[in-house]
C-alpha cells in the first residue's frame, strides 16, 4: 500500500485510485473525479453485499478555493490558515500533515478520532464546506480556504445539537469513540436527506464503523433527529 503523504500525483490505495496533492494548483482536475460514487463497504463486498451503502465522501480533495501556493511545498513547515468552526487558526505545518493530525495534535480539536487512519472507518469525519469527509485522508494544507466544521462546532455551549440529543435519547453510543464521527456524518446526511426513510438511513451511513455495536440506536437516532429538525 502506498501512502499519499507528501508525494504528488495519482496513487492507488487498496485498489482504489486517489489523488495526492502537494501543490493544490497542479491537480484541479480532481474535481472531475468521482467523489462519492462508491463506498468502502460497497467496494469490499464487490458482489453487492450491503450494496449501495454510500457513506461519507471519501478522499475528497477538491482545491477550488485554496489560495495560490508555490509549485512545491515542503518538506519543511509552511504557514497555513485553517478556518475551523468559524474561527481562523494560523499555524505552521509540514505539508504531509493530515487535517486530522492538525486538528487533534496541533489545535486540540479532539472530537474527531484517529482509528483506521486510512479512510475506512469514519471516526475522523468532519465537514468541509458542509460535506462529510474523512479528515485522515486530507492534507491540512489542502483544507485551506475551506470551511471546516468539527463536532465541537455543532453544539452551542452546553446546548446539544439535535443529532447529539437524539444519540443520547436512543443510547446510540457505548464506548463513544466512533460517536463524534457518526454524529458529524449524520448531520451531513440529514442536510442532504432531510426526510430520510429507514432504508435510506441504512444506505446513507455505511461510511462509519462501530465496534461496540450501536447501530440499532443510531438508526433510531437519525430518524428522531430528522423529525426534531423539521
Amino acid at each position, binding site marked *: 500500500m502506498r501512502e499519499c503523504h507528501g508525494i504528488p500525483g495519482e496513487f492507488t490505495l487498496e485498489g482504489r485510485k486517489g489523488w495526492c496533492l502537494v501543490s493544490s494548483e497542479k491537480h484541479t482536475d480532481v474535481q472531475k473525479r468521482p467523489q462519492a460514487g462508491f463506498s468502502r463497504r460497497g467496494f469490499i463486498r464487490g458482489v453487492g453485499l450491503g450494496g449501495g451503502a454510500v457513506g461519507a465522501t471519501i478522499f475528497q480533495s477538491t482545491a477550488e478555493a485554496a489560495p495560490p501556493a508555490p509549485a512545491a511545498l515542503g518538506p519543511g513547515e509552511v504557514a497555513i490558515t485553517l478556518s475551523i468552526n468559524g474561527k481562523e487558526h494560523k499555524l505552521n505545518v509540514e505539508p504531509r500533515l493530515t487535517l486530522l493530525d492538525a486538528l487533534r495534535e496541533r489545535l486540540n480539536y*479532539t472530537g474527531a478520532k484517529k482509528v483506521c487512519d486510512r479512510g475506512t472507518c469514519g471516526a475522523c469525519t468532519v465537514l468541509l464546506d458542509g460535506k462529510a469527509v474523512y479528515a485522515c485522508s486530507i492534507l491540512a494544507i489542502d483544507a485551506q480556504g475551506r470551511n471546516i466544521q468539527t463536532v465541537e462546532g455543532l453544539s452551542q455551549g452546553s446546548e446539544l445539537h439535535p443529532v447529539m440529543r437524539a444519540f443520547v435519547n436512543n*443510547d446510540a453510543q457505548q464506548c463513544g469513540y466512533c460517536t463524534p464521527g457518526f*454524529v458529524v456524518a449524520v448531520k451531513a446526511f440529514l442536510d442532504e436527506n432531510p426526510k430520510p426513510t429507514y432504508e435510506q438511513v441504512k444506505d446513507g451511513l455505511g461510511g462509519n464503523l462501530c465496534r461496540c455495536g450501536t447501530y440499532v440506536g443510531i438508526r433510531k437516532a437519525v430518524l428522531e433527529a430528522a423529525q426534531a429538525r423539521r
Partner: protein
Amino acid sequence: MPEYKWPAMNARRVMGQPLDRVDGPDKASGRAKFSTDIKRPNMLYGALLTCPHPLARVRSVDVHEAEKMPGVRAVDVISGPGTEIQWAGTEVAAVAADTYQQALDAVRRIKVDYEILPGHLVNEADLGKAQAANRAKPAGEVVSGDPDTAFKEADVVSEGEYGIPVLAHCCLEPHGQVIAWDGNQAEFFATTQAVVAIGNDLAKGLEIPADRVHVRQDHMGGGFGSKFQAERWGLAAARLSRAAGGRPVKLHLDRRTELEIAGNRPSFFGKIRLAAKKDGTITAWESTTWGTGGIGGGGLSAALVPYVFTKIPNKRVNHTAISTNCGGARAWRAPNHPQVSFLTCAAMEDLAAKMKMDPLELFLKNVQFTARPEVYAAQLKKAAEMVNWSKNWHPRGEGGKGPVKRGLGIGIATWGGLGHNSQCRTTIHPDGRVEVELASQDLGTGTRTVIHQVAAESLGLRVSDITVKIGDNRYPVSGSSGGSTTVGGVSASTRKSTLNALEKLFEIVAPALGAPANQLEAVDGRIQVKGNPAKSIAWRDACKKMGVSPISAMGENDQRNPMGLIDQGVGGVQIADVSVDTETGIVKINKIAVVQDCGLIINPKTAESQCLGATIMSICGALYEERIMDDQTGRFLNADMEFYKLAGIKDIGEIEVHLDIAPHHDGRGVIGLGEPPVVPGIAAISNAVANAIGVRVPRLPMTPDRVLAALERRKA
C-alpha cells in the same frame, strides 16, 4: 447496620428506570476525553518500531542515526541483541520526539539486524501440518461414560467438521497511554479495563511502589477483554519519559500493530460426532478440537465441551493446542464461549437435519442435559415465538424456489456473573452534595450510570443530585472489568456505602424529627419518619444539620459474601433468520431474536444496549471477521480496517431483545450482562445459513466464496 437488600421492585424510583447514560452528552458532543485525546504541557509523541518477521533473533539494534534526527528526545530499545522474536509485530524499539511525524521519521532510521530463523508456523487449520511441525500439544483425552458402546448402539450417528478463525479485538481506541515518569512518580493516562490493576502492573514493571503511580481515565474506547495490562509499550513510554527528563510521552499503537499484537481470541476447529436415539435424545458426544492462541498454544477446558449440554452421558473429548508465531490471545468477551457454542449447536442442528427432525424439538428434547432445563426450554420457546418458528421454519434445504433461500437457526449460551471485590466511599456534604467514589471504570457499558442510579435510589435523590467519581486509582479500590463482574461489584458496594452514609445522616436528623434513626427513610428528596411525609425535612435542610463536617462512609462488596444483592448464572438463546443468495453466496441477516436471562436490571436501556451490541459483534464474527495470516511471510495480511471487516449499519438486519424483567428473576439480584449475549449469535447464524441452503458452511466467517464452495460440494 442498615439492611442492604434492594428495595422491592415496585417500590424503586430510580433503579429500573430506562435513563439516558449520564455521560451520553459528553460523548455525543465530542467533549469526552479519552487517553488518545490527552494533551499535557511539554508532551512528546512516541512511536514504536516492530519486527516484521515471525521468527527471528535480534543481532543488533543501531539507534545512533535515529537519536540525531530532528526533534528526537529519547530512544528506547525494547528487544535488545539476543532477543528471540516469536511473532511479527513484536516491539523492538520506541522513540519520543517533539511531533508524531518526527518520531515516525526516527523509527525508520533505526537499523535492526535480524537473524531470520526457520520454521515459523502461522496457520493452524491443518492439524496434520501442525503435528508434523511438532507444534501441536494434546491436552489429553477426557472420557466419561462409555462412548464406544453408545455409538455402537445408537439409532443415528452424525458427523461434522467446523472451524472458526482467530478474531482480533480491534478496539477503536488503540492501546497506549500518555505517561510521565520522573523516576519517582508516574502520571498514567490509560485506556484500560482496570484502573487499579494497570497501575499496580506498571509499578511492578518500573520497580516502584504502587502508590507512586497515578492512573486516570474518564472514558475508554473499547476493550472487550484486551485492556488489563500496563504492556511493554507502556513501560517503554515510561522509560522514554524518564530519559527525556520526565516530560509526558504519548504513545498509542497504530492500527496495524493494534490488530497484530494487542489482542485476539483463539481459533477452534473440530470434528464432532453425535449419537442419538430415534426420538432425538443424544446418547454420546465425541469431539476432536484444536486451535491456537499464539505461541502459548490455546487451551480449552474439557468442562466447556459439549457446551451447555454438559450432562450428555457418554463423552470423549480431545483438544490440541497449537503453538503459532502470531500475536498472543487475550480474554475476549466471554472467552471461548462463542466458539464452543458454535461447534456444539452446529453439530446438534446437523444431527437434527440428518434425522429430518425439527432442531427446535431436538434442542428441547435435550435440555435435560443442561444445568437449567426449565430456563432453556422457556427461552427456546420464547425465541421461537419471536421469529414465528412454526410458520417460518422448514426442513433443511427446503427453502423454496428461486435463488434466495431463507433459513432459521438456533444458538445457546451460559455465563457466570457475580461481582468483583469493590469498595465505595460516599460523602454527604453539609450543602447537600453527594459524592460517590470508586476506582472503577466505565467501558461504555453504562457503569457510571448504574452507580448513579443505585446511589440516588438509596438516598431518595435524583441522578442529577449525585456526583460519581470513577476512573482514578486513588479512589477506593475496585476490581478490574472482566467476566461481567463489574455491575455486580459496584452496585453492591455503592448500595452499602450509600446506606452506611445515610444511616449517619439519620442519626444527626433524628432529634429534629422526634423519631429514632432506625425509623427514618429517605424518599423523594426528603428525610421522613417511615410512611409519614408530614414528619419530614428536605434533604438540604437535613444536611445543614451536620455543621461543617461532611459525612463519609465506606461500603464493600466481598465476592465471597454477596449478601443476596447479586447472583450468577444466566442462560440465553438466540434464533437467527437469514436469507442467502445462492447465486452470489451473500448472506443477509433478516432478524435475530435475543432472549437473555437476567437478574435485577438497574437500567433497562443500557442493558438492552449490551444485548444489541453483543449480537452485532456476533454478526461480525459469523459473516465478516477473520485474521488472515500469510504462510510465507508470517504476517497478518489484513491488519487494517479495510480488509479486517466489521459489520456496517446496513448489515445487521433487525434485532429484537427480550429481557425477562420479572419478580422471579429480579429476586436473584444483579447479574452482569456484558458477556452472555455475545455467545449464541454465531451458532444461530451458521445454523440459519445451513437451514437455508441445505448444507453446512463449515468454516467461518461465511463469506460469499465459502457459501458458494459449500453449495458446489452439495451439488457434487
